[in-house]
């Protein structure tokens, strides 16, 4: 491995910072403000969430799914039992013929049924609302998969290879969307949100639902949004507009 070229890094960092300030000062300042300093635990005052605008989500586009697989080192699924953290769902109204396309992933419920049923405490909700699986304590019983109303969880049946540093994953454990917790902790946004914006759709907004000045809160206040299966009263962190 080559030694790190610190001069190049500094130059690139300074350039990126200058470009960020010049182009989008608000966005950059918000990102810096959201980054939690090292050593501090996840805050209870934050509720991370996502808003999916189905009117912007393009039918047939899989940018979010591909980005998720890349980010977390998931092999592209070839069998129905392969791990899948996010999937594209097409909804068709039979009467009008209207078609909606939307990504469905872990909805990061405030009252997660997967956490209620977990016998070991491996399925848990972090203080800032992100629902995770601690693979150190997961025994692979798959109760959570059955409890989840959104089919968001997958079981890893085969030995894994090519894991990413930030996403440990292995045979015998259940896993699901972790809201790119490693990125969020650094003040970033999930890979699917980034790739959707890069593909020009900007159908997914990520942010703090508890912060009234965040973009997601303003959008949720301005337009009618729905939580999937709101009748179950799981109070999902992922909301959908245009459904």
């Amino acid at each position, binding site marked *: 491995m080559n030694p790190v070229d610190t001069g190049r890094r500094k130059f690139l960092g300074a350039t990126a910072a200058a470009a960020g300030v010049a182009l989008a000062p608000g966005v950059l300042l918000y990102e810096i403000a959201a980054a939690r300093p090292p050593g501090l635990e996840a805050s209870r005052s934050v509720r991370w969430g996502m808003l999916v605008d189905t009117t912007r989500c393009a039918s047939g586009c899989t940018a979010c799914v591909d980005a998720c697989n890349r980010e977390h080192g998931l092999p592209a699924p070839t069998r129905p039992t392969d791990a899948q953290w996010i999937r594209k769902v097409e909804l068709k109204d039979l009467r009008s013929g209207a078609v909606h396309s939307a990504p469905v992933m872990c909805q990061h419920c405030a009252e997660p049924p997967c956490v209620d049923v977990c016998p070991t405490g491996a399925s*848990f909700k*972090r203080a800032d609302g992100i629902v995770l699986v601690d693979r150190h304590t997961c025994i692979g019983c798959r109760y959570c998969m059955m409890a989840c109303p959104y089919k968001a969880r997958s079981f890893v049946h085969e030995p894994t290879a090519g894991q*990413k540093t930030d996403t440990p994953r292995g045979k015998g454990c259940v896993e699901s969307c972790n809201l790119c917790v490693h990125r969020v902790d650094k003040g970033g946004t999930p890979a699917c949100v980034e790739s959707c914006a890069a593909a020009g759709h900007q159908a997914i907004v990520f942010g703090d639902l508890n912060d009234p000045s965040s973009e997601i809160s303003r959008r949720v206040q301005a337009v009618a949004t729905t939580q999937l299966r709101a009748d179950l009263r799981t109070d999902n962190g992922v909301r959908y507009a245009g459904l």
Partner: protein
Amino acid sequence: MRVAGFAQAGGTLRAVLGAGAIALALAGAAWAGARAPALDAPRGDKCVEDAATMRRSHMDFLKHQRDDTVHRGIRGARHSLAGCIECHANPKDGAVLGSPTHFCQGCHEYAAVKLDCFECHASRTRAAQAGPVRAP
């Protein structure tokens, strides 16, 4: 008589324990000797703790920190598995597993301790993860 017998037994026990302690100390000293495994040299000149502490307690450091990180979301702590790998990986393939000279595998083979961190965790540096996938 019985009391004296106990005292005698206690003395024997102490002697055995003493001999055991000396044997352990010698075993510790043997680390630096010819039988120690030849491992990949680490990057940088200083570990997060001194070598003896790391040999004895690295698993405890990692286990303690993993709960803080996974459940409470505390990042940037002093002991991290990713940090170990970034410094101790083989400079050619960026891995800590693969042969008896690779850092983690070499020492765990020498100590005959099963190593299961890497059934889930990445065994290669971030830079090496772009390369071809190693068979599990």
